[in-house]
């Protein structure tokens, strides 16, 4: 097994038996462009962008679905390869309404990237007419079918990664469309809005409604963090523009979630910016809360705790820590109770 090699752009390199040309090339530092392939899943060969030249083969081969054979000679960067990718990019562009100016995917689009790289705009072929209107009735996901290249990534992600089985390929030929059961809109279907389809979409066919007009990819910085909801602890990128999260995506290949999120993790972040947020310390007086300074509020709490501990003993005070806040907060609170108040009356909601 080990020791198997093939020739990649004139260089003898190792590969694992059964590996596709695309994966083996990636492992050897050569990126072959693709719009449909998702790592770890069966290749669909739908986009025809990953074409490469294999010595002895009559036609160009799809790198995603061609297994490497020992001593196989593969070229990923020849004029013939370029010509084919260029043509296929042209065809994909012509098949849809790929006007980038208003597209949320602008700057984060696999198709745009290829068009730029190969210098094409889809004008060599007549434009297809589009029969399916954009769907945006649900709160989170905009489905713009005119930008869909039918690569099938969303279908694979839904069926094979998150296994929600809400969408599939529908209709035939020029009527082809990604559909839910009965071709209903997302919010009337089995869709659970995990947004994995948006995460893998290589174009602007699936975009996030909340993101609209909020920021371009080049305006945002990415910050890695851990999801604030359930106990899985998914790793996520916060896309932040001017101190505001405008989008959340999963960290690819990270433990524990390996590139996936759920509806709450992906779309449930904007509570942070609610007008209801508490912004100043509050003290209750005559049944009403009034704003107070930190010093006044902290002094009052300290005085009351001291008074009660002096009068009734340390076990007359008790505290509940927060199972949603950071470790360091819980550490600090139990330290306050044990070291300062001198009681072990500290608990949190793990038991309830």
């Amino acid at each position, binding site marked *: 097994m080990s020791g198997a090699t093939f020739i990649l752009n004139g260089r003898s390199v190792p590969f694992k038996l059964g590996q596709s040309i695309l994966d083996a090339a990636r492992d050897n530092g050569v990126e072959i462009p693709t719009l449909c392939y998702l790592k770890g899943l069966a290749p669909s060969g739908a986009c025809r962008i990953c074409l490469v030249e294999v010595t002895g083969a009559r036609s160009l081969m799809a790198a995603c679905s061609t297994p490497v054979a020992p001593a196989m000679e593969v070229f990923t960067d020849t004029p013939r390869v370029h010509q084919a990718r260029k043509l296929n990019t042209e065809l994909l562009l012509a098949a849809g309404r790929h006007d980038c100016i208003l597209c949320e995917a602008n700057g984060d689009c696999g198709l745009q990237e290829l068009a730029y790289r190969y210098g094409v705009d889809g004008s060599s072929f007549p434009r297809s007419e589009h029969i399916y209107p954009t769907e945006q009735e649900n709160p989170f996901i905009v489905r713009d079918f005119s930008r869909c290249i039918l690569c099938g990534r969303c279908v694979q992600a839904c069926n094979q990664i998150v*296994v929600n089985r809400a969408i599939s390929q529908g209709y035939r030929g020029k009527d082809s469309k990604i559909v839910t059961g009965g071709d209903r809109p997302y919010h009337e279907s089995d869709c659970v*809005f995990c947004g994995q389809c948006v995460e893998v979409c290589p174009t602007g066919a699936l975009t996030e409604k909340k993101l609209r007009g909020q920021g371009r990819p080049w305006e945002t910085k990415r910050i890695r963090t851990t999801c604030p*909801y359930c106990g899985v602890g998914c790793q996520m990128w916060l896309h932040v523009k001017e101190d505001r999260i405008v989008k959340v995506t999963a960290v690819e290949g990270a433990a524990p979630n390996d590139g996936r999120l759920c509806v709450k993790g992906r779309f449930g972040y904007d509570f942070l910016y609610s007008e209801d947020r508490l912004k100043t310390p509050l003290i209750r007086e005559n049944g009403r809360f009034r704003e107070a300074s930190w010093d006044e509020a902290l002094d009052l709490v300290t005085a009351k705790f001291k008074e009660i501990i002096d009068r009734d003993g340390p076990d007359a005070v008790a505290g509940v820590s927060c199972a949603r806040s950071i470790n360091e907060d819980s550490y600090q609170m139990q330290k306050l109770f044990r070291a300062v108040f001198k009681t072990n009356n500290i608990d949190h909601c793990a038991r*309830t």
Partner: protein
Amino acid sequence: MTNSFADFAKARMIFVIGSNMTEAHPVAASFVKQAVLAGAALFVADPRRTALADMAEMHLPIRVGSDVAFLNGLMNVLITEGLYDREYVQSRCNGFEELKAKVLDYPPERAAEISGVDAETIRTLARRLASVKPAMLMYTLGITEHTSGVNNVLSCANLQMLLGNVGFECGGVNPLRGQNNVQGACDMGALPNVFPGYQRVDNAEVRAKFEKAWGVTSLPDKPGLMIPQMIDGLGNGKVKAFYIFGENLANTEPDIRHVEHCLASAEFIVCNDIFPTETTRFAHVIFPAAAWSENDGTFSNSERRISRVRTASPPPGEAKPNWWIFREIARRMGHKWPSKSAREIWDNEVSVLAPSMAGVKYNRIRGNGLQWPCPNEEHPGTPTLHKHRFTAGMGTLTPVDWTPPAEVPDSDYPLVLSTGRRLYHYHTRTQTGRAAGLNDLLGEETADISPFDAAELGIGHGEMIRVASRRGEVKVRANVSDRIPRGVVWMAFHFREACANWLTNPAFDPVSLTAEYKACAVRIERA
């Protein structure tokens, strides 16, 4: 969890009990479903036919609160048919004879009578479970939120040890934690009996270590109160001052009326929170806190992985990190704490004081976190617990008896109310209720009832009904669903008006004091 999420998709056999993972832990469920697509056998024990049950080889619709009887029945078959892992049990476990004597009292016929799953199905499941090794067991609050919660957990552990499944990749006993940092809050010693790293407060050596580290004397040696005792303590005057950090107890605890009476009785309540809640109404002082992405820190997930939380934006107004608030109170009481950031707290205090986390430092968890135990800075962390030997030496098989829920249906309250979480909301909606869109997908609570009960009571799908228990009653829309078994009403606690906790029973497991959220008696009628 003894094991890791990375095991889920690779597992060859999975037994899920008391976990509606697709809604409460959707990403974890995705790995289980992937395992099934790859050929793994899945068994789901749950009174409701959950979405995961649709993908299972067998769905075992056990009666609410019958877990121990059901699991003892499985173990009875494993032992009487000689299917358990004799070698594993002999070499790695204590207590087999005692366990055997106990489960012999639970032949499949008796387990069937209690659980409602027929004896032949119990036999078949036991044989299937013994046919693949290792198999993973996962559970969630369906196991723990019972007056028999601790016994339910012990039964899960008994089963997995009997099958020789603990201590291996793709095996083990795996409770999925409901909240992002429940694991961490435990690890940090926000518990009445242990310091950070599960070091007991009644151990003099441990206390001496913390006294030295914290520069104090006479740390208290008696375990403190648990939440239900604190709440009752407010009611009976034993607890005068109550500090509530980021909890909405007025919605989350069983029997809201009682809880609110107790909160109203407090002499002094302080809350740290990010929003006004039903609970902060009872506060005398409210401190505005920095939220999730407004401070640096760490969370610990269900698989004991300590991962970074990072700042994306400053907190609004004058809100401050919680650790700063606690530090300021300490300072005003004459204690100068040296750590001035979450990182300093972790690197200079937590990891120094908790041996199981000694190897975890901020500079080691920039990308993927580390799973404790991680005793030194060269240690790679521990994805699987109890490999080769149990942490305590030998695994203990603990015989336990089935006990019914504290409140069972009768002629006045003929149905069982069971509760939990739904996909589109989180707890009392302080967060998800304010995230645009989630209310559109789920805007109100429903009472999920079976078509049988609906037909019997003349209740139509979507009609308003009254659900009443001995504690209170709510008006709520009926959701008639064939996923609910006859005799069961199922509700969540996300919405205040129809919160299940107006109805739930403040009966607790005698050891853990976990409330029996999963079972109380109710009656329903058209509103």
